[in-house]
Structures are given as structure tokens and as C-alpha cells.
């Protein structure tokens, strides 16, 4: 690292006195000291936990290990046990369904609302801000009310469904094994709409209004304007939103924990909540860490894609 700093200093201050050069170098080093707290923090609270998790996933790490400090290395043992666990397929499949379902509906609904707010009308700014509430309130608050809304006998959702004569039955949203995941998915879509809306709205605002004016003169209607102007120009922002959304949705914990707790009988468990229950209900920390490893691979692969994409696209948009 040191030679990088030195090289940069030399280049920036080429033809000056040696004293100036050394002063500049010192100044730069002092400036870099400002990074020390963050670097220490990153190493202790991100890098170390990530590496420690990977280590744990190769050990037989149980509740006893915390006391004795003993956790024998068992190679891929945890992964073998994880994959052969009957709940594994459910958790993986649920994670995929939950993530793709959330992304699709959050994005399309968020986009529709963003397009709607493109128009200026009285109170539009204020009303748009109100839309953020589901995203800002603690997830546990939302989770609690969704439990009530999904209530089989007294919940509003069943009331609406029965009033519309869709079915006269009381749907057991949270206890029917076929519906539990769909229920948390619905709640999660609701929570994620504002985030998609805000960012897509920002992207729409950056599109020059003259393009729409020109298109209108050429006789383009709202749909043509959307599909030939808004959508193509929004694509970079849309990609960023979807990649970031994917990374965050794979990790969703609070929503599922507050509404179904992964139940009934693990049917609405995703890899994330399952890792929690393996570690803290069954107290098999090695197994939980192995599930965590799989999650990390997914998150980091798409995280890297996001970084590549966000950096490049933003730079191009900025020019």
C-alpha cells in the first residue's frame, strides 16, 4: 500500500522542492489516518464475522463449543448433513420463490406508482413521501399488523375476499402449509414497493422532459412514451434496483420471523430463517453457519454484479 501513496505523491508534485514533496506526503498520510477507525471497524465487524462463519461451517460447533472452546474440524460434514436434511430443499426453493416473487411484484408495482407520480398534481410531493411509510417503520410493526390482517376468522383480508364472493371459506393464510409462504411474500412485497418506487421515480425525473414533448408532437401516446422513452432510459436504474433488491430480499429475516416464524413445521423457512433456527433452536451452530455460507455465495455473486453495474452505469449517466 505504501508505495501506492508514494507514487501518487511524486506524480502530483513533480517539479517542486523536496521539502514541499515531503510535506505533501506527510499531509496525505495524516489524511489517511482518518480512515483508521473505519478500517478497524470493517475488519472487526464485517471481515472477521464473515471469515469466522466460514470457519464455523467446517467445524462441529455446538452450544458446548462456546464453553469448552472445542470445535473439531469435520471438513464438509456440515454441508453433507445440511443437503441431506429434508428441510433443505424446502428452504432453498422457498428462498428462490420468495426472492423472485418479491422482486417481480415490488418492481412492477413500484414502477407503476413511480410513473403515476411523474405527473404533477396538487399535493403530489407530500403524498409521494407518505408512500415511504411501509419502508421506514420497523418491520416488526408491519409484521404484527399483517398477522392480524391475515387472521383466519377476524382478519380484514378474509373479510374482503368473502365480501367479494371469491370464496365463502375462511382461508388459513398463516397455518395452511400451502399458503404460509405466500402470506409472507405478500407482506414483503408491500414493504418493498416504496424503495422501488423512490429510486425508479428518481430515475424517471432524470429523463429530460423535452424528449416527452418531442414525442407528444410526433403523436406518441402515453404508452408509446413509456415504452420508447421512459423504459429504455430507465433500464440502467432498473437493473441497479433489481440487483440491490435481490441482495436485500435473499436476506429478509424480520418479515418472516414476525409473521410465520418459518412455520408451520418449517414450510415457510428460507435459508436465512432456517440458519437462525439451526443455530439458535437446535443449537447446531456449524450447520447454521453452513446455511449462512450458501447465502453468502448468493449475496456476494449478485453484490459483485451490482457493484460492477452501478459503478459503470452511474459513470456513464454522469457524463
Amino acid at each position, binding site marked *: 500500500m505504501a508505495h*501506492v501513496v508514494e507514487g501518487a505523491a511524486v506524480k502530483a508534485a513533480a517539479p517542486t522542492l523536496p521539502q514541499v514533496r515531503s510535506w505533501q506526503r506527510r499531509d496525505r498520510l495524516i489524511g489517511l489516518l482518518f480512515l483508521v*477507525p473505519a478500517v478497524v471497524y470493517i475488519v472487526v465487524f464485517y471481515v472477521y464475522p464473515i471469515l469466522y462463519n466460514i470457519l464455523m461451517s467446517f467445524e462441529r460447533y455446538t452450544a458446548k463449543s462456546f464453553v469448552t472452546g472445542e470445535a473439531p474440524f469435520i471438513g464438509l460434514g456440515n454441508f453433507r448433513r445440511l443437503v441431506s436434511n429434508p428441510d433443505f430443499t424446502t428452504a432453498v426453493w422457498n428462498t428462490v420463490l420468495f426472492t423472485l416473487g418479491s422482486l417481480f411484484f415490488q418492481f412492477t408495482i413500484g414502477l407503476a406508482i413511480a410513473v403515476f407520480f411523474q405527473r404533477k398534481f396538487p399535493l403530489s410531493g407530500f403524498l409521494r413521501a407518505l408512500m415511504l411509510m411501509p419502508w421506514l417503520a420497523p418491520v416488526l410493526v408491519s409484521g404484527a399488523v399483517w398477522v392480524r*390482517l391475515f387472521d383466519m376468522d377476524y382478519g380484514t383480508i378474509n373479510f374482503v375476499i368473502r365480501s367479494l364472493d371469491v370464496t365463502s371459506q375462511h382461508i388459513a393464510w398463516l397455518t395452511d402449509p400451502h399458503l404460509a409462504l405466500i402470506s409472507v411474500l405478500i407482506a414483503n412485497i408491500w414493504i418493498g414497493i416504496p424503495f422501488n418506487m423512490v429510486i425508479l421515480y428518481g430515475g424517471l425525473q432524470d429523463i429530460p422532459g423535452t424528449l416527452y414533448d418531442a414525442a407528444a408532437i410526433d403523436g406518441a401516446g402515453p404508452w408509446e412514451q413509456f415504452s420508447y422513452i421512459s423504459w429504455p432510459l430507465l433500464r440502467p436504474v432498473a437493473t441497479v434496483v433489481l440487483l440491490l433488491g435481490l441482495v436485500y430480499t435473499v436476506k429478509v429475516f424480520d418479515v418472516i420471523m414476525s409473521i410465520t416464524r418459518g412455520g408451520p413445521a418449517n414450510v415457510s423457512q428460507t435459508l436465512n430463517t432456517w440458519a437462525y433456527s439451526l443455530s439458535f433452536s437446535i443449537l447446531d451452530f456449524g450447520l447454521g453457519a453452513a446455511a449462512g455460507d450458501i447465502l453468502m455465495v448468493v449475496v456476494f455473486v449478485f*453484490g459483485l454484479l451490482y457493484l460492477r453495474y452501478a459503478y459503470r452505469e452511474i*459513470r456513464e449517466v454522469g457524463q
Partner: protein
Amino acid sequence: MTATVATQARGQARKRAKSWLWTLLALVIIGLMLFPFYEIVNISFMHETDILQYPPPFFPPHPTLDGYRQALSTAVGYIQSSLIYALGTVVITLLVATPAAYALARVRAARIGSLLLFVLILAQMAPGIVVAISLYAMFSHLHLLNSYLAVILADSTIAVPFAIIVMRAFMIGIPQELADAAVVDGAGHWRIFWSIILPLSRTALITASLFSFLFGWGDFLFALILNSNPHHTPITVGIYRFIGGFSVEWPSVMATAVIAAIPATILLTVAQRYIAAGITVGALKE
């Protein structure tokens, strides 16, 4: 002449009426989106027995503050813990993130800067559960489990990257001439940071603080895993325990939920511009 003015006025009036129609439509959308929050408030004013009515009442049939009375008697401790976690998260986050944002924005050492940013953005994507399990082991060795500090340090992992990114993006925009003038006067990095950049970055500092507060206030995962001391239970975990029982006392749970949603509501009405700016910068700016 007068005729055209009249037509114009009529056209304008029609346009205005039409734009209020959009407001109406927006209100419908928002009514649907925010209905769950209406339901929270609605139930919080009900009696226990109103909960077992079908169809579910749209207004509290006999409004009462019982739910709030009960919530306050149990939730005071939760609120206090949540406040400590939230404020602690703000302090740790600002201490770590502000100097880093300054260095990343104002010190020319580009390669270290972008490497750090890269690690930071990627690291904060690590699933909370992974971080929490490892921190559980670490804090257990350090005998820090069940302390406020353990949860605060963990909560900051959500806030630090965001705060660095937001503040750095802001500090880059401060004109270099201001700092140059100070350098001529012999000021070093510390003085430039403290007396020039910090005061000018007020907006970014407020945005970062507000979000850190919300992250700390809303955290559930870290408090659930790193704390088992009932006196340190935050309001989120409190709600989680309330709704886990066999018979849920909905009015008091919802009253607790109303209290838990207060910070977000205040920020939404008072600090709107910071919030919209924060979300966009956090997601899109490198």
C-alpha cells in the same frame, strides 16, 4: 379578445379540476398502501372484545385508551432500551463514518479509497444472520453478550456503510477553494475537517444520523440474538414476544406498534427531504 381570455380561463379551470382528479386517485392508492397502518391505529383504540367481531370493525366501536395504558405499563422499558440502541448507533456510526467519509472525499489516495469503498459495500451485503452468529461467538468470549454495547456495535454495521456513502457523496461536492484557502493559512487536515468540512456537511450529517437512528430503533435480528436480558429488550423484540403467544392482546400490541412507529412518522413529516435524498444516494451513488 375577451372571448379568448374566457376560453383560456375555462381551459385552465378544467386543467386544474383534472389535476385534482389525479390527487384523488393518488389518495386512493395511498389509502390502499397505508391501510395496514390505519388498521394498527384502529385496533389500538379498541376493547379486547371488539377484536372478536365479524365483520372486523372499521372504526373502534367504543374507543378506549386501555390498549395504550396497558402498552405503556409494559413498554416503557422497551422504549428506553430502543432509545439507547438507536442513539448509541448514531454515536458509533458518526464516530466511525464521518472521518472516513472525509478521507474518501478529500484525501487524494484514490486506490485505497475505492478499495475501501468496494469492501464496504460488499461487506454490508453479508446476511445479518451470518454477522449475528459470529458476533454472538465473539461477544460471548468477550463477556459482552446482553450488554447495550454489544447490540449497538452490531446495529452500527447496518448504518456505517450507508453513512459513509452518503456523507462522502456530499463532501465531494464542497468546493476545493474553501479548503485551499485554509491550507494557505497553514491549516492541516484536522482543522479543515473540523472547522470547514463538518459545518458545511450539516445536511449529510443529519441524513446519516436520522437513518442510523431508524436502523438502531428498528433492529430486531441483532437484539434478538445478542441480548437475552429482559431489561434490555427493545420494542421490536417486545412486539415479537407479544404476537407469539396463543391469545394475542391486539389492542395493546397495536398501541405498542403505534409507539414503535413514532420515530419513522416524525421523520417522514419533519425530515422528508433528508429521507428521499438518503435512499437515492445510498442505492445509486458509488
